[in-house]
């Protein structure tokens, strides 16, 4: 109880707190406690042992964590994807993809990657993307002989490109917190988003070359077969068309588009194909609720944990000695990236954004850094963070939806992590990747 003397003196040693909380979390995590326990215990240790604060705040913050309206899109897209996967829609879409790309090396994973990019960009939800595209594409990729670890890593990482391409809640929140043009951020996010999609696609191609003998390519389809596949996919294609068109035309918000996709899936599967019965729909809703709950309880508990970190202003304390005043731009940018990266390892990306941005804004303003570039860098780290262990919403979603153990889900992520790391470095040394489009647009 030697920490107690610090508490009595009124000065908490943030290094002691940080060390204790991290060790507590990591130990409980590796002992294979349910993930909600490490977060809850770390929060409790902080609140009770270090700060003597009423622990009721944990309950309040769980609710706050699950309350943002944008989160509603997650269960809705899960439900839509589940209904389509149970019915004909998913199969017909896959038939189309196979007919056109199935005979090419890397054709399937590249299609999966680009589908994730497109769907994620439009829906604005990485978790929804993991579910929708993952649920539909994964079985096909597995059947073609791709390893599950590769497939799951591809899906969770490609989904994260969603953060960079508008509309993006991360860019909007950053723009407001850092007083930076959201319009410019939107444009600046597109370049790095595309570069990432290309790099991931290249990796898919290389991977399928290296694994050449285990992966079966389908025979090249004839023109007539392709047209038949296209015909079968017409109704299912209404699904992406509805979402893309609905959102970009302004008819619906991304959250509402998610609900409409459920309605569309129901109409197509139950009324037109007559494939699904009431029981199937109820099953889909139940499974959706379960997946939502196991992810959201962690989002909520993560919010409670980060509330404590924020209350004791631990990030500020840890960053103080780095002495960023007057440092070089590249150094500042690297530190910002690193801070967000580390933060996103342990808590949800948006929470990290809210906690860290106010700390860095004055430093960015007094440096020569373009705040738009910083915004893109920060968003890139948030994207990476959703897929980096131990805390990553996309990982949780993948575990829940594919019913696979934690380690198996993250096994194949390393190559993607390297690509994302390279991308971060590229952004520091070639800021034009983000800023060129922005500068062109403002001419």
């Amino acid at each position, binding site marked *: 109880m030697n920490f107690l003397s610090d508490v009595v003196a009124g000065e908490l040693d943030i290094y002691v707190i940080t060390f204790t909380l991290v060790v507590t979390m990591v130990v409980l*995590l*590796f*002992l*294979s*406690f*349910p*993930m*909600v*326990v490490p977060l*809850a*215990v770390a929060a409790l240790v902080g609140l009770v042992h270090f700060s003597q604060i009423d*622990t*009721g705040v*944990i*309950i309040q913050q*769980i*609710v706050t964590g*699950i*309350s943002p*309206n944008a*989160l*509603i899109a997650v*269960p*809705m897209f899960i*439900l839509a994807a589940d209904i389509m996967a149970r019915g004909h829609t998913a199969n017909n879409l896959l038939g189309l993809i196979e007919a056109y790309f199935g005979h090419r090396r890397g054709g399937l994973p590249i299609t999966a990657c680009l589908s994730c990019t497109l769907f994620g960009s439009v829906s604005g939800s990485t978790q929804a993307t993991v579910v929708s595209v993952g649920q539909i594409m994964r079985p096909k990729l597995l059947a073609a002989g791709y390893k599950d670890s590769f497939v799951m890593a591809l899906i969770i990482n490609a989904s994260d490109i969603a953060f960079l391409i508008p509309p993006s809640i991360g860019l909007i929140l950053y723009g407001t917190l850092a007083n930076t043009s959201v319009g410019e951020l939107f444009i600046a996010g597109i370049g790095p988003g595309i570069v990432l999609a290309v790099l991931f696609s290249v990796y898919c191609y290389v991977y399928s070359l290296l694994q050449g003998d285990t992966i079966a390519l389908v025979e090249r389809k004839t023109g007539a077969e392709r047209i038949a596949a296209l015909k079968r996919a017409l109704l299912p294609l209404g699904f992406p068309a509805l979402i893309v068109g609905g959102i970009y035309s302004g*008819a*619906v*918000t991304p*959250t*509402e588009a*998610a*609900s*409409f996709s*459920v*309605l569309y899936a129901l109409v197509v599967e139950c009324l037109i194909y007559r494939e699904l019965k009431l*029981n199937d729909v*109820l*099953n889909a*809703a*139940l*499974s*959706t*609720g*379960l997946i*939502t*709950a*196991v992810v*959201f*309880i*962690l989002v*909520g508990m993560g919010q409670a944990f980060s509330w404590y970190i924020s209350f004791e202003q631990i990030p500020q304390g840890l960053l103080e000695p780095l002495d960023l005043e007057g440092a070089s731009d590249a150094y500042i940018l690297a530190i910002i990236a690193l801070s967000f990266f580390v933060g996103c390892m342990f808590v949800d990306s948006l929470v990290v954004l809210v906690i860290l941005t106010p700390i860095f804004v004055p430093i960015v303003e007094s440096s020569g850094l373009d705040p738009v570039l910083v915004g893109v860098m920060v968003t890139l780290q948030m994207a990476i963070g959703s897929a980096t*262990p*131990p805390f990553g919403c996309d990982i*949780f979603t993948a*575990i*829940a939806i594919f*019913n696979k*153990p*934690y*380690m198996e889900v993250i096994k194949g992520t390393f190559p993607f992590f390297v690509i994302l790391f390279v991308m971060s470095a590229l952004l520091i040394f070639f800021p034009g990747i983000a800023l060129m489009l922005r500068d062109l647009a403002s001419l």
Partner: protein
Amino acid sequence: MKTLLLTANRGIEFAEKAIIIFSILLMMVNSTANAIGRYAFGQSLFFAEELNQFLIVGVTFVGFAYAVRKGRNIRMTAVYDALSSRTKKVLLTLISLTTGLLLMFLTYKSVIYVQEVKDINRLSPALQFPVYIIYAVIPVGLAMASLQYLIAFLMNVTHEGTYLSLSVQDGDAEDIGV
């Protein structure tokens, strides 16, 4: 006695499922109705967001309890998988007990929180609805989850095998259905 408990258990499971399904489907109806109203009739459902938030609280806490029941909670089992089955059993027995107790503590805290929200008579801004009625689902969900872990602890102590909940053994967590 035993049949009575098993019947109660089945009843609770049925209630959990019903709440989850109802909430998810209502969320869909609510959001689409709001968009259709705004787009086609120039009328928004001013309470749509609030209702969705209520529903998500319900889904999260009841769904959490249901997920524990079905052994579908997220764990990182890298070290665990490498252990001998005897060590596994000891560890899981310990985990189910401590997790159950932790959740019981959180249940207690949430009862107090709900009571506080009731005492200050907090009303939701759009529907002017007493928030504590919705939040009452928090202690209920946490209590059910806690109970599942404590039952799993008893099963681990009294039976062969490694139990995640009353009916699900480690490694058996499977897909769910109505």
